[in-house]
């Protein structure tokens, strides 16, 4: 292998990329607008959830409760009758329906411990859980405040001081922004290298390279290095300018360490891009393959939902995916400020996966070159 060849071919890859407006737009979009919108549009768990109230009490207390529900967490309640309730929930109009029985205020004041009924549409998982405890606390607060005028209540003896580590306010935009960077690194690494190889094949320049004194190893290395470099630089800039600068997300750990991990991850994913491009015969086929490969890689990596709630077999299979280790090291470094002593197992796993993918892709690349040319 001659380093000079890799360098010349690598420069050629960069030049080709710089003249491909679609890819440039994709890179810029993925590392700016996409991150900004992922961070700001990350839905709050409870945002304007629709609630309906059946008020059979029509007392001062029930009116206070109705008035207590306000945006942004809940929509202003629609006051309905008991007969409407089921139909509205079946039609999916309301997520919550609260029923206040007749004589509620009287029973509260008499200490008879009356019961309210809260119906929750549990097919809306995200709202059901947080929403019901939110509603409970509002109702309890209103009832307490109403009753406090009449009697004293004792403070709880044992208090629970809950603190959120690494993200004290549970700010979702922190999570959204960084995860988008991580996902887009994977996506672009595969798309750019795959497209570079397919473009070369569609223009017939691959066979030209094959008759020159360059080896398949040099050709593949040049693509892997050039595209990894592009994504690495773009990701670094995006973290510094968009994530830290524009979105003001505090990054706990070392960006340099994160980029080192990214480089290892790119080694694996760019090789994967080459591999997919040797299977697909054209860009459209590549696109279809990409959807089938990228979605599991990203969704099951632990970047969107916690890995521990997935079935064991899925967790086990995903150990072989580079994204799993990348997400794990990225979260540890960027959110929790972990150092190399903590994340080295992920680095090691990425290096092994990367080497295996590179070797596999190179073997396949060599084998298919004859068919490509």
């Amino acid at each position: 292998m001659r380093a000079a060849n890799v360098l010349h071919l690598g420069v050629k890859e960069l030049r080709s990329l710089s003249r491909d407006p679609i890819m440039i737009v994709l890179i810029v979009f993925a590392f700016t607008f996409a991150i900004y919108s992922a961070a700001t549009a990350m839905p709050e768990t409870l945002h304007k959830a629709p609630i309906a109230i059946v008020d059979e009490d029509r007392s001062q207390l029930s009116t206070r409760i109705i008035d207590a529900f306000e945006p942004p967490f809940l929509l202003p309640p629609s006051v309905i009758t008991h007969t409407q309730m089921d139909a509205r929930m079946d039609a999916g109009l309301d997520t919550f329906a609260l029923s206040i029985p007749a004589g509620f205020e009287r029973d509260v004041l008499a200490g008879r411990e009356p019961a309210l009924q809260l119906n929750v549409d549990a097919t809306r998982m995200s709202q059901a859980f947080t929403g019901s405890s939110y509603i409970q606390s509002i109702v309890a607060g209103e009832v307490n405040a109403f009753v406090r005028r009449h009697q004293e209540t004792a403070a709880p003896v044992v208090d629970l001081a809950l603190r959120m580590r690494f993200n004290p306010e549970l700010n979702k935009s922190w999570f959204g922004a960084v995860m988008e960077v991580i996902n887009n690194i994977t996506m672009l690494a595969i798309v750019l290298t795959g497209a570079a190889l397919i473009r070369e094949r569609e223009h017939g320049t691959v066979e030209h390279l094959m008759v020159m004194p360059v080896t398949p190893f040099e050709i593949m290395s040049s693509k892997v290095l050039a595209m990894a470099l592009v994504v690495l630089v773009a990701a670094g800039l995006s973290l510094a300018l968009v994530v830290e600068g524009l979105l003001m997300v505090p990054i706990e750990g070392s960006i340099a360490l994160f980029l080192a991990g990214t480089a290892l991850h790119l080694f694996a994913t760019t090789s994967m891009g080459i591999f997919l491009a040797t299977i697909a015969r054209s860009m459209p086929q590549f696109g279809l393959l990409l959807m089938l490969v990228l979605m599991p890689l990203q969704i099951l990596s632990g970047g969107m939902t916690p890995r521990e709630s997935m079935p064991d077999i899925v967790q086990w299979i995903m150990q072989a995916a580079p994204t799993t280790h990348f997400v794990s090291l990225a979260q540890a470094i960027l959110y929790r400020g972990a150092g190399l002593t903590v994340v080295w197992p992920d680095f090691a796993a990425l290096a092994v996966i990367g080497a295996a993918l590179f070797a596999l892709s190179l073997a396949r690349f060599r084998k298919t070159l004859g068919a490509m040319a």
Partner: protein
Amino acid sequence: MTGSGSPPVARLQNVSLRYGETLAVDAVRIDIPAASMVGFIGPDGVGKSTLLALIAGARAIQRGKIEVLDGDMASARHRREVCPHIAYMPQGLGKNLYATLSVYENVDFFGRLFGHARAERERRIAELLYTTGLAPFRDRPAGKLSGGMKQKLGLCCALIHDPDLLILDEPTTGVDPLSRRQFWELIERIRAARPGMSVLIATAYMEEAARFDWLAAMNEGRVFATGAPGELLARAGARTLEEAFIGLLPQAQREAYRPVVIERYEAGADAEPAIEARNLSMRFGDFTAVERVSFSIRRGEIFGFLGSNGCGKTTTMKMLTGLLPPSEGEAWLFGQPVDPHNIDTRRRVGYMTQSFSLYGELTVRQNLVLHARLFGMAQERVPARVQEMAERFGLQEFIDELPASLPLGQRQRLSLAVAMIHAPEMLILDEPTSGVDPVARDAFWQIMIDLARRDNVTIFISTHFMNEAERCDRISLMHAGKVLVSDKPATIMAKRGRETLEEAFIDYLGEAVGEEAAGAAPTAPVTAARNTAAAQGRTRFLSLRRLLSYSRREALELMRDPIRLTFAGLGSAILMLVLGYGISMDVEDLAFAVLDRDQTTLSREYALNLSGSRYFIERPPIRDHAELDRRMRTSELSLAIEIPPGFARDIARGTPVEIGAWVDGAMPQRAETVRGYVQGMHYHWLAAKAREVYGQAATTQLATIETRFRYNPEVTSLPAMVPAVIPILLMLIPAILTALAVVREKELGSIVNLYVTPVTRLEFLLGKQLPYVVLAMLSFLMLVALAIFVFEVPVKGSFLTLTGAAFLYVIAATALGLLISTFVRSQVAALFGTAVLTILPAVQFSGMIDPVSALEGAGALMGRIYPTTHFLNVARGTFAKALEFSDVRASFVPLLIAVPVLIGLCTLLLKKQER
């Protein structure tokens, strides 16, 4: 000869057409005589194809007026009436054919489009396949036919409906001379049977054009000469049509032309073989591409390979360059055996591929520099060498431009310069002159002859032009993977006693194909007694036969494309598994540990309270704060609890105490759930304690809230997610597939069949949609089966209602894909565009996360009209809420409206002509 008595078959007045900036056709004004063979001659890119497409009605008229068969082609009504009388075969071998369909299936498809009944169709197909000699190959896929056979198949498809006007765009380019002769004989026989038929042909072969009745010579979008071949020769005072063409060109272009000066090759004493091949064979599977080819080329010789497309020329060249390892046989370059891994012989060879493969994104200079460096030229020598090549090949003017902006002739010179950059001793050139105009072609040959004679470069060139073959020192005639003869052109002609190389070649070919040819070219005249009145494809509003012919074809093609089929069949199942397992909002098995600084029974009891639940798993206790910090950073712990010293004592005394809990906030959603759990457990523990200490009285509360989690009492993810994922997948995948289905035809060129056959837009769309609706319904059943058996989420309500809604929904989804495909031009854009345009509204605005009733503004409007909203309602209703048809009736109405609206929009936006 011009058929002066009858009116012209086509009359063009001031016809112009632009593609963006370029003027492809420039104020053409001609009358094309009827009932004759009319040729359009000129090199590539002068506007011949555009003009023919305009006459065929495949392309919309921009300026001027075109009358064909006594009517205005600008009128849609006239086009509809005449299209059964016109047959159009576009340029490119088999461009309007379907590569994965067999010969029979292709012709059958066209027969169905023109509305022939089964018996009539089979009779015609049998007759056409017999006349064209394709009968023995009726089950072979069109993509695997040789060039000549593809063109014959194209002709069969064009002739199936007895046209009065046959338009052939470069029908013989790249076809071997024997097949070419057979092709013209076939046309002659058909004309003999149907004397009224007019034939319009575009060609780059001047020898062919000499046999036509009337010619129009074109250059730069203009027709600069018309008349019978004899008239043109007389006017230019030329011997051949090629000379006449150059002679009649405008002054400026004619001046650039120099006739090629051929110096004959003198075999020197040192004439050792530069290339030697012995018994080279190449087999791909059971197909033999090259069979026992042997030859020897001496140093400094120009050696030509002559043969049709697909006869094995390119494969042989690839074996010599080491690109393909031969199945059998050996080859030597400069006395060294060819070894694909020997990088050093590559430095001595220059190779130019068929497609002038240059880096389109690099400038002329960058292309030259890159190749110089890759050939290992010393850094300091590169600029001088690049300069030298630029001067020699006349590239200086545009040295910093991109190759794509250059005319073909200049790109070809650049390609040669690139192949020559490292001063190789041998050049291997694969059809370097195809598509280039005669002036540029001759200039190119002059350069090659100079290289061979002055620099003693060995040149191995392949071509399908006879006049180029005559310029070689020696040639090999190739056919079907075999070398028929190898000698000097003059000797070959002498051996056969023929005047021209073409005739000699045909002789050899005839001998080689022997018995095959006897069957292939039956001399029986084409039966004239065709029942022309039979089902000539009445242009009814909607013909089920045409519609189904598209469905049939689409289904056949889909079944033969493994990647698309996998995506269509298994894509939704794979994604359902991924999403079902991946997007889980359950939080289970969370790791927690306790820093217990009290170490009493009470403090341990508090920890047990947590570890006893299904949500938490206890890890070894924490010793100090540093350890707590470290173990949270490694994400080993999602929750850490600190119980202060004196916890039990303080509670006993009634002094307030505080338990500390740290939650990993890196994943906010998970953290929120953890917070909820911990709080719940804490209060539960408190209440239990209070009961122990104070008895029942302590639990007195002001009021209680009974929470009923309806439809999904366990509040687990799967019953909530599964009914929401199915609508998303049934939107995404069918829409992508239908969008690709139409755009694919636009890219491959077979969309032209929509333009020039009687099929209507609605038939085309519905026909294409049908197979995908069937596929989508199958994948719906698969998804429901997955939901029930793998995810164990039962359908509690009416399955029939769910299926009915799914049926309407997939029709809407496939129609949406078709709608997107009417806008986009490339498959890649269709793919990503459809993905974005379906996923975003389906996930954000259709009630999957936020109910539509909570949306505002544009999102709310989108949510109300988007089909996913309504199907999602039915899916959730029938899966989780145990609803019946009467409960979700309202959701059917928008779906019923969406289907005709979407299909109507597609029909309106789809073009029946290219623009």
